[in-house]
């Protein structure tokens, strides 16, 4: 039972434009979410997080939005850069779960 889903396996955007990556979850008890970024042949690295007491968290070019009623998160990257090309995972805290395939972002120069 996959409790976190990223329904878009891939996304392609032009450099300078906005990238929007989406994540849906089923368990309303999740209270903290983290986004990770993964380059090929490397382990995932933490990018940004959000607590369920907030609906937005911003860090530079990265903003995460949380809609608790819809059980939906989104990660916005603006402006997108070629170095942002990677696989992005969202995960609830206490991540013993199957994370899913993530979303592969390609930012084209």
């Amino acid at each position, binding site marked *: 039972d*996959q409790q976190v889903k990223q329904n878009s396996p891939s996304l392609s955007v032009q450099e300078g434009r906005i990238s929007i990556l989406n994540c849906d979850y089923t368990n309303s008890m999740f209270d*903290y979410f*983290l986004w*990770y970024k993964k380059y090929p*042949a*490397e*382990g*995932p*690295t*933490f990018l940004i*997080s959000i607590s369920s007491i907030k609906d937005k968290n911003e860090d530079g070019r990265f903003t995460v939005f949380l809609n608790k009623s819809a059980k939906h998160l989104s990660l916005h990257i603006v402006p997108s850069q070629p170095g942002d090309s990677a696989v992005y*995972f969202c995960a609830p*805290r*206490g*991540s*013993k*779960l*199957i*994370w*899913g*395939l*993530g979303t592969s972002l390609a930012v084209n120069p």
Partner: protein
Amino acid sequence: GAGVSQSPSNKVTEKGKDVELRCDPISGHTALYWYRQRLGQGLEFLIYFQGNSAPDKSGLPSDRFSAERTGESVSTLTIQRTQQEDSAVYLCASSPARNTGELFFGEGSRLTVL
């Protein structure tokens, strides 16, 4: 070192052989996780260690898989009588106690079972 270290980075073995994968977590991190990612699949939880508590082994796929951790340091994941479906990247992550849940990952050990 500053980060999570895993070895070997690549391992090719023959079906039926045993393999050991090693993880050196960040110093002071009490929590340690093992995951695997098979080709075309997501990150799959295997086992979780937290301090001196009994490990959470709920993700281990079969009794051929086992893991140990010495105190709050090195962990070894052992796969006995390897099968081709064990081929995957095995990722280790550590986390400090009482933190926000952020995991620090190693670069993984790529296992290929011929």
